């Protein structure tokens, strides 16, 4: 054993002491490091830990349902699953994107586009990458929890509408909210959220939409759910009850059928919309998930314009329906006086131009007064009235009665129609009003344009002695706007008697839609789309018409007013649109009849007709004697009759 290195006790005490200081110094430095992380930046790291651990998954609140006036469900929800992508870790998302696209059967380009579009949204907001998940998608997500911990399933509620586009223009539809809407919503909306895009869905979106809840789950480092934290329950959207009567709506839908057109039924005393149909109608169930670009393009380019909400947006020439306004204007202004009569030889010459009556070439009306002119829809009489009134008077009364302005119905994008005036022509066309144009306007042609809703609203208002109620679809709407137009009793009486005659007198243009036991009044209109001669030149033989009918019952203070228009028909308004209106009014009374039968016997004191007592009907009071029977013959073949249109 060598001892030569022993017993050497010269220890470098200074350097050993230095080593101690180094130890103290380094440990102190480390403690500073911990102090910074654990005390100074503690909150920041606490949040990071929380974000690691807690995954927030929204619980989608169901949208409120829509019920009809009797509580029957019109628009409902059904549960469905969406695949959402968590984007907290963009690097991981980029890496896994091809695998995700492959696994879910999505196009990688589309996914990348979608990610690009949502780049500016907060990273913690997941995005919906596949709205309708299949069982295979679920299996894919579950089996790849560990290697692709970026996907989650989200239960959503999809809208279910009645099939076949039933009432679809009133209900509207929902769709994914746009990026602009998301940005404007102050964080309330997320990508993949649904919002009302049109109709009532859009109008009452704020009511229908609920507040989404939030499920906060604890996930481990491989994305597996290991526990749950507080759950914030979703608040479902409010259910809304509509004024729509499902039974009447069915009649309206069936009445229009394949025809292009619109029907609106109102209760003028309350403003409640009882039926609302516009055909052709898209099926909003097709949009309930995600509407493809092609489908959207097809709908937009369809010649039938299925996306056009004809009730409030179709601006059409009213044709003879406008004579109701003319008659009211004449009686109110007394220009010409009430007892004015005109002779109709089948045409009239005004301002050097010949204007035909619709019976031209087949018959003539002879001497007509206001009543017979309304009943038989004599154009020549109203040409004369229009000439006496002048365009500014016509315009004044038409506007006063509610045309040329929105009715204020609780639907988006209502059109206001057009009531021409001297001022309007000057402003838009920069020329003076041609007096000849007044003649066309007198029979609802020319540049006057109305929506079906306006016609129902205005006619309902006149028959209610100038009491107008804002049309609405929401049963519990607050503040129904009212409008009072001062109409003299005589005016209302005479006009409604005329309209009663249209349906109930022999020779009335609406005689074919007479209803037994109901004081059903109305007026037909046939607005010509193309002049007869132009149609002949094009080899169409017949011109295409917009056939109108507006009807109401009872005669004074009606409970129901229905306006219908059938576009591009070869038929007369009375035959094309008349039956649609009649069937609704009939259904309305049949239903009312059943109800009253089920309850108590109701006495109809102040009503001339006993409604609901079909067994012992009284004779209808005929306010005016029936017109000459030979004039009725003109009504038999109305399809060939044309009105003149002047532009």
């Amino acid at each position, binding site marked *: 054993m060598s001892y030569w290195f022993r017993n050497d006790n010269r220890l470098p005490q200074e350097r050993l002491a230095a080593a101690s200081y180094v130890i103290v110094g380094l440990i102190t430095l480390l403690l500073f490091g911990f102090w910074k992380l654990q005390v100074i930046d*503690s909150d920041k790291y*606490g949040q990071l830990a929380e974000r690691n*651990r807690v995954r927030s998954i929204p619980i989608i609140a169901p949208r409120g349902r829509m019920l009809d006036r009797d509580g029957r469900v019109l628009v409902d929800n059904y549960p469905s699953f969406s695949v959402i992508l968590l984007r907290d870790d963009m690097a991981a998302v980029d890496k896994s994107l091809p695998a995700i696209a492959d696994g879910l059967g999505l196009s990688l380009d589309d996914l990348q586009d979608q990610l690009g579009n949502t780049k500016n949204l907060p990273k913690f907001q997941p995005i919906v990458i596949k709205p309708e998940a299949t069982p295979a998608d679920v299996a894919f997500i579950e089996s790849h929890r560990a290697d692709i911990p970026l996907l989650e399933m989200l239960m959503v509620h999809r809208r279910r509408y009645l099939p076949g586009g039933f009432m679809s223009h009133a209900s509207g539809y929902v769709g994914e909210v746009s990026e602009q809407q998301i940005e404007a919503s102050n964080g309330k909306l997320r990508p993949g959220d649904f919002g009302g895009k049109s109709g009532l869905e859009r109008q009452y979106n704020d009511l229908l939409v609920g507040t989404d809840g939030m499920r906060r789950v604890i996930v481990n480092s491989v994305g597996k759910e290991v526990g749950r934290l507080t759950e914030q329950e979703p608040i479902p959207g409010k259910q809304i009850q509509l004024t729509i009567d499902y039974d009447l709506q069915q009649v309206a839908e069936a009445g229009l059928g394949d025809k292009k057109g619109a029907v609106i039924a109102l209760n003028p005393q309350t403003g409640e919309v009882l039926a609302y149909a516009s055909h052709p109608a898209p099926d909003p169930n097709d949009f309930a998930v995600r509407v493809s670009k092609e489908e959207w393009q097809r709908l937009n380019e369809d010649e039938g314009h299925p996306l056009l909400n004809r009730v409030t947006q179709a601006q059409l020439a009213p044709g003879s329906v406008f004579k109701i306004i003319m008659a009211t204007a004449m009686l109110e202004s007394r220009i010409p006086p009430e007892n004015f009569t005109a002779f109709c030889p089948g045409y009239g010459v005004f301002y050097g131009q010949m204007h035909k009556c619709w019976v031209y070439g087949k018959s003539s009306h002879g001497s007509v007064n206001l009543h017979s002119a309304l009943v038989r829809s004599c154009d020549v009489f109203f040409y004369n009235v229009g000439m006496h009134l002048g365009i500014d008077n016509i315009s004044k009364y038409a506007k006063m009665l509610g045309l040329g302005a929105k009715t204020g119905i609780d639907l988006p994008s209502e059109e206001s129609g057009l009531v021409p005036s001297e001022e309007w022509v000057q402003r838009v066309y920069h020329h003076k009003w041609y007096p000849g144009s007044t003649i066309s306007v007198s029979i609802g042609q020319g540049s006057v344009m109305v929506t079906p809703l306006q016609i129902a609203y205005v006619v309902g208002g006149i028959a209610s002695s100038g009491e107008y109620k804002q049309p609405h679809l929401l049963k519990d709407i607050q503040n129904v706007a009212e409008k009072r137009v001062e109409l003299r009793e005589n005016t209302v009486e005479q006009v409604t008697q005329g309209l009663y005659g249209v349906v109930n007198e022999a020779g009335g243009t609406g005689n074919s839609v007479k209803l037994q036991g109901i004081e059903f009044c109305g007026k037909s209109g046939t607005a010509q789309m193309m002049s007869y001669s132009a149609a002949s030149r094009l080899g169409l033989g017949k011109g295409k018409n917009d056939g109108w009918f507006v009807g109401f019952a009872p005669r004074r203070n009606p409970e129901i007013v229905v306006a219908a228009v059938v576009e591009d028909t070869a038929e007369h308004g009375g035959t094309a649109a008349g039956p649609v209106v009649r069937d609704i009014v009939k259904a309305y009374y049949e239903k009312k009849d059943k109800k009253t039968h089920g309850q108590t016997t109701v006495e109809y004191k102040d009503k001339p007709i006993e409604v609901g007592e079909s067994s012992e009907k009284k004779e209808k009071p005929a306010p005016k004697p029936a017109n000459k029977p030979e004039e009725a013959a003109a009504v038999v073949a109305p399809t060939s009759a044309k009105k003149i249109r002047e532009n």
Partner: protein
Amino acid sequence: MIKDAPGARDYDWWMLAIIAAICTLGLVEIYSTTHGSVLAGMHMRQIRWLVIGAVLMFVFSRLDYHLILDQAPILYIIGIAALTAVLLVGHTRFGAKRWIPILGEFLQVSELVKLIIIIVLARFFAEVRTDELSLQDLIKAGLLVGVPLVLILKQPDLGTALVLMPMLIVGAFLAGLQWKHAAVIVLMGVLMLPVAWHVLKPYQKERVTSFMHPEEDAKGSGYQVLQSKIAVGSGGFWGRGFGNGSQNQLGYIPVKYSDFIMSAWAEEQGFKGVLLALGLYMALLLRLVQNAQRAKDRAGMFLDMGVTAALGFHVLVNVAMVIGAMPVTGIPLPLMSYGGSATLFVFLAIGLVMNVRLRRFVN
């Protein structure tokens, strides 16, 4: 005043108490990180290692360290041979050839080599008779360390290889390292850095780059460090409580029972817990230095300070890694991290220190 058989009271009971305290913290946290997982029961295995280590420590301390130093050349040759053997026939685990099976367990040869180098360096520096360390001796010492260092790097085990450096530096420093030599070595070291970069394995380079730019490597070692920092930071001052650290319990902290055990401890026990743990380590290290100061001879002092350098370096590098102040190197935290070989090394090293202490008054 000859005292051939040192008594029980000559042991450094304070140091043993500190060690016992640190081991307790380690066991508590190993339990917390592994209970309720597939690794449950790991704390029991660690207790077994601690018991074996303690027994070895006492056995080792009975043997006069001069006898051990006498065998330094043979130990050195055994160490080099073992390192070579492990490269040829060693067992590969976690992508590195570091393990040989002994007594049914896989042991890391490099842990044993660390101990041998402490002994060899102590012997070498004790034989240096001059007050100042000559350049010649410095180079010799460097070569003594260089050979096993290269072999360990081959495994590859950068962490353990690095531990040899502070042993050499501390030894040289205490042996009278001249400032000019120190300056030249530092300068050379800086110049060698680009060369060293080329020698690094890809995963080692990745660790360094991700240390420099952690955000570029979200799921690799940058992710590990970030998660560790989140764990430490979210612990706050008071900690989230035993078994309540979400980073720990939900598996966000990498190898939380071993290399990153301080991260889990810091999360659950907070800054106060860190203060306790680092305080204990500081006490242990200072106590080691004190033992060196009271060593009977230079050889004993060099042994003590070799152990101090190794343990101190472990603590520094491991804890700095946990708070993101140093790259990930895979160096465990002595006595707290789970691990057989590492635990045995620490106890054997402490055994050496006790050995020196017990013979303070002999002769």
